[in-house]
């Protein structure tokens, strides 16, 4: 890998454009309008083409203007179709953006004879070439694209900071926003205008279709990592910046590992974003799939362990002194489990709560104390359910069985007080201390 100042500029430009997209994208994700970002990024094509045909040149300002107008028009048209025809929002978006995109393709084809305009570069950009187009600024030569994207990022940042409260309220509760005097639809249209403008500012770096990756994915991944809005914004910016770095580095290294040449940075940025999202989807501390599975597994194991100890306690309670010990097979049969029981027994042995005895298991002193606590909760619950709530059916055992796992000492004391410090439960079993 050879890294030059050009690579640095590519990464900086990509970073700025990804961050300006991600900042607004957070609000699209929160407002469940992600696909509106998709629709706008497709639909700006005719805006670009019309700006070309009208001005006959490729100046940035008319293009920005044309595309922004068409972008805002898209949201208007989608809402008009929803309101007038009763089609659902997804289908209306589908109708509008494909129509505008088709129109754009035709216009570009017509204009192509006169102006060099390739739909490909509009769709997936040409960030590799942006450092070649520089303008002098502060005595340095800075790529024009970096300047454009930095300006866009500054505008978006100013918008989000100034209207932080308004955006927050309109995103989470538009009705409340209206009652306290914030015009939700004005905020909506400002946001949509900025999304369209950002899509255009970014299209030369990541392309108009891949803009949607930068709009949605950082915000969506951050949404899995936090519940605080300000942290969401910061995290999405960090993720966007990571996408740019990872995207470019992998574009010039990964294909080489497989014996190919380098590939599109914009494409790899979207892939990097997808990879970061996948990681968040699986391993986010609170909402990640794997994390949730681990938490559920730990809870399930705790319940099986409680059950094993409870079973041993009850067995020792009633079994005559010369009876053998419960073995693993008996435990499995009684608890209707297989590997989970084995795992629970292994863990209980490891933590010295039970010990091996005469072909089976017996509680240690630690285990005896803990299981007495569980059984106490169980029998107090039975007393409470039957005595206080007149719920004395056979299923009272099952209910108490579920509740015993979630009863902490304070609740246990409260239960004891509520049922008047009983000594025996409704089945006439002794309640341990």
């Amino acid at each position, binding site marked *: 890998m050879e890294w030059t100042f050009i690579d640095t500029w590519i990464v900086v430009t990509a970073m700025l454009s990804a961050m300006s997209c991600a900042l607004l994208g957070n609000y699209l*994700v929160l407002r*469940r*309008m*992600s*696909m509106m970002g998709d629709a706008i990024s*497709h639909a700006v094509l005719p805006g670009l083409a019309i700006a070309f045909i009208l001005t*006959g*040149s*490729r*100046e940035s300002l008319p293009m920005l203007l044309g595309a922004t107008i068409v972008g805002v028009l898209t949201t208007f048209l989608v809402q008009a179709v929803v309101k*007038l*025809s009763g*089609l659902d929002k997804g*289908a209306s978006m*589908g*109708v509008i953006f*494909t*129509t505008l*995109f*088709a129109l754009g*393709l*035709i216009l570009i*084809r*017509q*204009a192509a004879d006169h102006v*060099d*305009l*390739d*739909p490909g*570069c*509009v769709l*997936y950009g*040409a960030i*590799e*070439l942006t450092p*070649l187009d520089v303008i002098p600024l502060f005595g340095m030569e800075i790529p024009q694209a970096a300047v454009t994207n930095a300006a866009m990022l500054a505008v978006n940042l100013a918008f989000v900071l100034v209207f932080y409260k308004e955006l927050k309220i309109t995103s989470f509760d538009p009705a409340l926003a209206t009652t306290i005097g914030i015009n939700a639809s004005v905020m909506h249209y400002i946001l949509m205008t900025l999304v369209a403008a950002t899509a255009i500012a970014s299209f030369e770096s990541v*392309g108009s*279709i*891949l803009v*949607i*990756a930068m709009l*949605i*994915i950082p915000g969506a991944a951050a*949404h*899995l990592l936090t519940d605080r809005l300000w942290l969401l914004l910061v995290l999405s910016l960090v993720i966007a910046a990571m996408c740019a770095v990872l995207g470019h580095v992998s*574009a010039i290294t990964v*294909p080489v590992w497989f014996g*190919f*040449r*380098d590939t*599109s940075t*914009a*494409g*790899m940025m*979207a*892939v990097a*974003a*997808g990879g970061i*999202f996948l990681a968040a989807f699986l391993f986010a501390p609170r909402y990640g*799939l794997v994390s949730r599975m681990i938490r559920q597994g730990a809870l399930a194991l705790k319940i099986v362990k409680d059950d094993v100890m409870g079973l041993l306690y009850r067995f020792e309670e009633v079994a005559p002194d010369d009876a053998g010990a419960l073995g693993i097979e008996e435990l499995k049969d009684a608890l209707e489990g297989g590997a989970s029981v084995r795992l629970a027994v292994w863990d209980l042995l490891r933590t010295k709560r039970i010990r091996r005895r005469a072909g089976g298991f017996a509680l240690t002193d630690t285990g005896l104390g803990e299981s007495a606590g569980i059984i106490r909760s169980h029998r107090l619950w039975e007393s409470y359910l039957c005595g206080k709530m007149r719920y004395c059916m056979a299923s009272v055992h099952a209910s108490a069985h579920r509740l015993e796992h979630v009863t902490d000492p304070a609740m246990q004391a409260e239960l004891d007080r509520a049922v008047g410090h009983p000594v025996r439960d409704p089945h006439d079993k002794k309640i341990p201390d």
Partner: protein
Amino acid sequence: MTARIRRMQLSGPVLAAGMAALSLILPETAHSAGLSSPFPSWPGWQEILRVLTLQDYNTRVVVIGTTLLGMAAGLVGTFLLLRKRALLSDALSHATLPGIAIAFILMTLLGGDGKNLLGLIAGAAFFSVLGTASVILIQRYSRLKDDAALGIVLSSYFGLGIALLGIATRMEAGNAAGLTSFIYGKTASMLLMDALLIAGAALASALFCILFFKEFALICFDGEYAASQGWPVTRLDFLMMTLAVVVTVIGLQAVGLILVVALLIIPPSAARFWTHNLRHMLWISGAFGAVSGLVGSGMSALMANLPAGAVIVLTASMVFLVSMILGSARGLLKTGLERRRLQRKIARENLLRALYEWIESCSGDADAASCILEEVPIEAMLARRSWTSAELRGTLHRLAAEGLVRRESPETCALTPEGWTAARRVVRNHRLWEAYLITRADIAPGQVDWGADEIEHILDPEMIQTLEKMLPETPVDAVPESPHPIAPPQGAV
């Protein structure tokens, strides 16, 4: 870096695209040449006839292929639309790109023809199934909503596709030029084999739509009911998505992956305006799709510079626009006319009742002939309701045309005997409903006027009979007393 730039120069298409992008941004002057006429010239009648009668071999293949594709997409799209999965097809079509690129790279590396259509389609189908599965996984196992899941899958798969295409175009072996036609579509390059493939797949998916009509209809309208009745909803859903995948991948070559979704969404959306019957909607949608394919590919065959995929989609959009306005079931014209008719009926009945009540309060005895003939000042009517002067005069005009109202002077009006009868009927309905609300629904007399005002316009004779039976104390052929005071007749003499 210079080495990399040189590498780029080696790969022609990439550089061309790149330079175009660059020149797009540069404030360029060299190209600001005047535009003579950006639009293609119109073809003669003979050419149109040639295309329409399919005399040209090439055109025949293309036109038949796209027509069948449009039909199949219209049929399958109907169910997708009703299942509210319209945009899922967008994610699904974008997800095909990495499949195409990988299939090309693998086939080229294995020494075969990189652009073998069957291989490319297999790759596309595999990845679109993978994309659909990813969407479902994200929806099911994360806190993100449907739309975010679609956007994430769509963009990351498309990005992967672009990255892999970048590798494919820079490979020494094989010629990847033309692979991008899968993004925008390139109908003109359709061969007989491709058309046959499209025809076969289209007919098969149409057949499935017809065979599974009842099952699909059931899961579209009430999936939970279907599940409770023991239908294999998951498997039926899977079949539906498989049909969508089939239509998408065979449509890639014709209209491109960005626009193929239009064929799945627009024809059924347009068909919805014409009927409330699902079976009819299915056929209309198929027909609209076929017509779009036919007209679109025909037009692009006639005019050199029109990309077929885009023209097909725009044709479908025109069909949608026309349907939205003229549709016989939900078209704007139809619903607008119905709304106007209802509003006029309501205004007519409101005015009749207002006239009756004014006359009623003018004298103790409403049925007195002198009162019937009394001239009512329009000013007084204007104050009774929140209608504008123009609305009131328009309604009066229509009542006069019906012969229910006499106009002696521009500032007054009077009921004719026919008008009196009609007004009595309206007021009687109103008061019957008021009596019902008071006696049966236990609503205070002061509050019943508003409720009755809403419903009196849609009470049919059968309902009136039921009300009469439920309220036996009401005299059969007379108007009951109002249970609440009526606003004093302002402007009364």
